[in-house]
């Protein structure tokens, strides 16, 4: 029985459907204290004095801590990954005399209840000296960090060929300016931590709603001076991540610090306002693009210079703008490219990857360019794309730009880009759709059809770990360094392990996100869990089965080739009554002598270190209708063709794509983090920052193409972020089409009602 490829129903569901999930906020320990954070109300201020005396006197308050109390632990966090062109700065657990964005943590109050801690937070006296703040990407803004007076965190240029010469030689050249605003991952569960210091064991246990528990353990170890074996970090059930739980935040170390300092368990649960104020965000960039092309619409040269807002700190270095710059050309063959950026500090929330990580911006830019070229040449938009796509015979295709990890160039490893586009067009009935839209427009309605293609970088290394262990009762546990925030790894990794072990997914328990279960791990981001973590599980399970065969042969006294496996039972194929179970083998292995020929323990740990990233691809088609009076955009049809290699579980893959598209609709039309000129957040609640609802997201039609990746044992490519990538581009294309010749062109996302209204024709010009 093979389970990879099956729409296996999820093993996590019965727990989550009956209220028996265990999220970090559900964990209560005896004697537990509660923390509330004092956050800067200023975008930029000198912190003159923090006085916790009044707060300490409040009944129920146990402690008040500010920067000076941190001692040697009050050091800036490391930057992951470093980059030679980065002038990097990261935060400490608490602000070190300067606050650099509204919401930065200045002090913390610990009390016997969350209610009391939040009351006492108001009694902490902080004297601020407000300073002018950098709220613009233009040069000349006040410095965010004293040693970076021009706020330039990094400047990078990537190039293929001589773009200036190619632009001079191109028959046609057009320029366009494009912009993308800020948004956030916005998981429905906010961040949170519980930390418990066991003095008898010298053991710090931390439950964190995080995508990277192993990295939290490392930071705790570094900053609190504890060796790894004394720190266990567990990501229990996690209510979504999308990048908002990707970095190690100040609180991830601060709450453990407090638990050890007070020798009491401490819990902190972020509220939604704090999440809006201080969880990392992304996407803000301003692009200036020049494209050279021939009369048939073939692109000959592309130059993009952009400015990237990195916020007040760079916990993830230059990852986001590097991804935008290196992925700029998408699935297209462009002979000469220059892609350069300046990443600038502002007194705003730090910018780190969220679902898509710089790539939605790249897709928006290149797909707007393709639409522009189509318009300029009078060719149909899909035809222009087909004329420029990398062909299957070109694979592997060297894009000619270094990848964001600088481990080599972006090499598109596999895929059939023309086929995914054609299949998307077919399933949408593209030609008929366009004809219908044109007919509707002729009657005065604002109906349009859009399309966009994309490739997505997935399966990032350096490695992921997998461990498979059979215990003396025959229970099979799979440990992975990848984590799950809803991606269904408990099911999909069980499918992978079951196939390797000759068992069923129900025989296998998957434990993700626990540093106590597996020593090394990286975590889940960059659409990597299935590719890298799934491959590690496959390798470990394969090795474990080989070990079981050696053991069974020894125990039964036959050659391995004489064994027959039926479920958890190995038997002598000639005398089936001579049999031994996984449980019995585990007991034998637990006392293995040298004569048994295997090392003790029926378990295996393997790492998968991918040689390179693997790239998913696809195409989306959308139909929209705009209400000319309210400017509301309704997505009335959505078709997807997607290639992420072999599908472990198509049901799960489709769910990832549907969720990604929903998030993309939010970042195209609804969601925007807005600050005023002083850096005060103007979108601090779900009344101001609008997530898509069930009435905003259409049903989608999804078609799969499976071209296998040559870069991992399962042939898979990542999918978690794919759905989100092309949505702003495809909706911009559709909205342009709906407005036809009568409106402005979409050059900025998110669109929002105000921006869209400005594009609409005046009401009196409503009839054609």
């Amino acid at each position, binding site marked *: 029985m093979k389970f990879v490829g099956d729409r296996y129903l999820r093993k996590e569901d019965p727990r989550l459907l*009956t*209220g028996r999930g265990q999220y970090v906020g559900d964990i209560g320990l005896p004697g537990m204290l509660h923390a509330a954070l004092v956050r800067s109300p200023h975008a930029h201020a000198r912190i003159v004095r923090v006085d916790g005396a009044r707060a300490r006197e409040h009944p129920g308050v146990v402690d008040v801590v500010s920067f000076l109390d941190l001692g040697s632990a009050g050091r800036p966090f490391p930057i992951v990954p470093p980059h030679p062109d980065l002038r990097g700065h990261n935060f400490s657990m608490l602000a070190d005399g300067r606050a650099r964005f509204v919401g930065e943590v200045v002090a913390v109050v610990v009390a016997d209840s969350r209610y009391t801690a939040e009351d006492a937070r108001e009694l902490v006296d902080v004297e601020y000296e407000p300073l002018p703040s950098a709220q613009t990407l233009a040069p000349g803004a006040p410095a965010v960090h004293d040693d970076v007076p021009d706020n330039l965190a990094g400047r990078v240029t990537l190039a293929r060929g001589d773009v200036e010469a190619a632009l001079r030689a191109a028959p046609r050249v057009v320029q366009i300016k494009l912009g993308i605003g800020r948004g956030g991952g916005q998981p429905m569960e906010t961040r949170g931590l519980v930390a418990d210091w066991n003095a008898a064991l010298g053991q710090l246990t931390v439950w964190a709603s995080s995508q990277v528990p192993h990295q939290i353990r490392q930071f705790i170890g570094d900053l609190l001076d504890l060796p790894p074996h004394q720190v266990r970090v567990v990501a229990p059930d996690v209510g979504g991540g999308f990048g908002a739980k990707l970095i190690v935040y100040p609180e991830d170390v601060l709450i453990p610090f407090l638990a050890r300092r007070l020798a009491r368990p401490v819990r902190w649960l972020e509220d939604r306002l704090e999440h809006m104020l201080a969880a990392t965000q992304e996407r803000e960039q301003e692009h200036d693009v020049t494209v050279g092309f021939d009369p048939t619409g073939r692109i000959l040269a592309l130059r993009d210079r952009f400015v990237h807002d990195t916020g007040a700190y760079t916990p993830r270095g230059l990852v986001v703008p590097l991804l935008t710059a290196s992925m700029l050309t998408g699935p297209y063959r462009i002979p000469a490219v220059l892609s350069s950026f300046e990443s600038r500090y502002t007194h705003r929330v730090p910018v780190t990857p969220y679902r898509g990580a710089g790539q939605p911006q790249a897709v928006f830019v290149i797909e707007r360019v393709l639409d522009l070229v189509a318009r300029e040449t009078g060719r149909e938009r899909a035809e222009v794309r087909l004329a420029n796509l990398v062909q299957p015979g070109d694979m592997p295709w060297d894009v000619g730009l270094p990848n964001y990890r600088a481990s080599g160039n972006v090499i598109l490893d596999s895929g059939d880009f023309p086929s995914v586009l054609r299949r998307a067009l077919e399933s949408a009935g593209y030609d008929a759709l366009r004809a219908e839209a044109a007919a509707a427009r002729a009657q005065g309605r604002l109906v349009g059809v859009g399309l966009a293609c994309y490739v997505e970088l997935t399966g990032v290394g350096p490695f992921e770990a997998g461990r498979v262990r059979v215990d003396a009762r025959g229970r099979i546990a799979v440990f992975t360094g990848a984590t799950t925030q*809803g991606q269904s790894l408990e099911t999909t990794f069980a499918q992978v392990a079951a196939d390797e072990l000759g068992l069923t997914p129900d025989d296998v328990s998957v434990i993700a996100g626990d540093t106590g279960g597996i020593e090394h791990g990286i975590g889940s981001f960059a659409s990597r869990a299935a590719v890298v973590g799934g491959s590690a599980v496959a390798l470990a399970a394969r090795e474990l089965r080989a070990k079981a065969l050696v053991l069974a042969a020894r125990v039964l006294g036959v050659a391995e080739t004489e064994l027959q496996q039926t479920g958890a039972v190995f038997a002598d194929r000639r005398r089936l009554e001579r049999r031994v179970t996984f449980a019995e083998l585990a007991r034998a292995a637990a006392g293995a002598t040298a004569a048994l020929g295997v090392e003790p323990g029926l378990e295996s740990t393997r790492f998968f270190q991918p040689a390179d990233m693997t790239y998913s691809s696809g195409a989306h088609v959308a139909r929209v209708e705009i209400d000319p009076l309210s400017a509301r955009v309704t997505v009335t049809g959505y078709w997807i063709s997607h290639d992420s290699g072999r599908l472990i579980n198509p049901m799960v893959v489709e769910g990832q794509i549907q969720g990604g598209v929903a998030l993309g609709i939010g970042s195209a039309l609804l969601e925007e983090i807005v600050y005023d000129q002083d850096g005060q957040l103007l979108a601090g609640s779900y009344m101001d920052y609008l997530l898509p609802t069930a009435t905003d997201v259409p049903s989608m039609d999804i078609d799969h193409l499976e071209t296998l990746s040559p870069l991992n044992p399962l042939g898979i490519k990542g999918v978690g972020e794919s759905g989100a990538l092309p949505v702003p581009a495809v909706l911009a294309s559709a909205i342009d089409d709906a407005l036809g010749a009568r409106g402005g062109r979409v050059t900025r996302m998110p669109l929002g009602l105000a921006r869209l209204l400005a594009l609409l024709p005046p009401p009196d010009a409503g009839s054609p």
Partner: protein
Amino acid sequence: MHAVRLTVNGAERQARVMPRLLLADLLREEFGLTGTHLGCEHGACGACTVLVDGEPVRSCLLFAVQANGCRVDTVEGLAGADGALHPLQEAFRARHALQCGFCTPGMLMTLTAYLREHSSPTESDIREILSGNLCRCTGYQNIVQAGLNAAAALRAAGAPR
């Protein structure tokens, strides 16, 4: 402190509470019913939806004292006493209508109340009734399908549970 007495998932419960204690915190922290989740604490996301005297309410916007004397139903009470999933829970599983599961209890409670009174909803009915419950994972498509399938299953089974 005030004494409150409620019927939670059919069982009599009582507690002494601060006047400002939220119903959600009473359920989660005092009664240990952590299936009710807090996503925004300002009444916008719907994750904390429970039924009070049969009506869906945001337990983050209600004080515990306001629920005094009321019947409160939470996600923990949906499955049968034998552990059998409610048809709505079954439909959610069959249709992959949950990923991280954090919004799911609110979705289930909102739909439970709705399907009791509307046995033959359309897709747009379901989308409308769910428009006050945010989900960041699924894109809603499978939740809507699960709601429709559950309605059909409940119809087939006779009276809704």
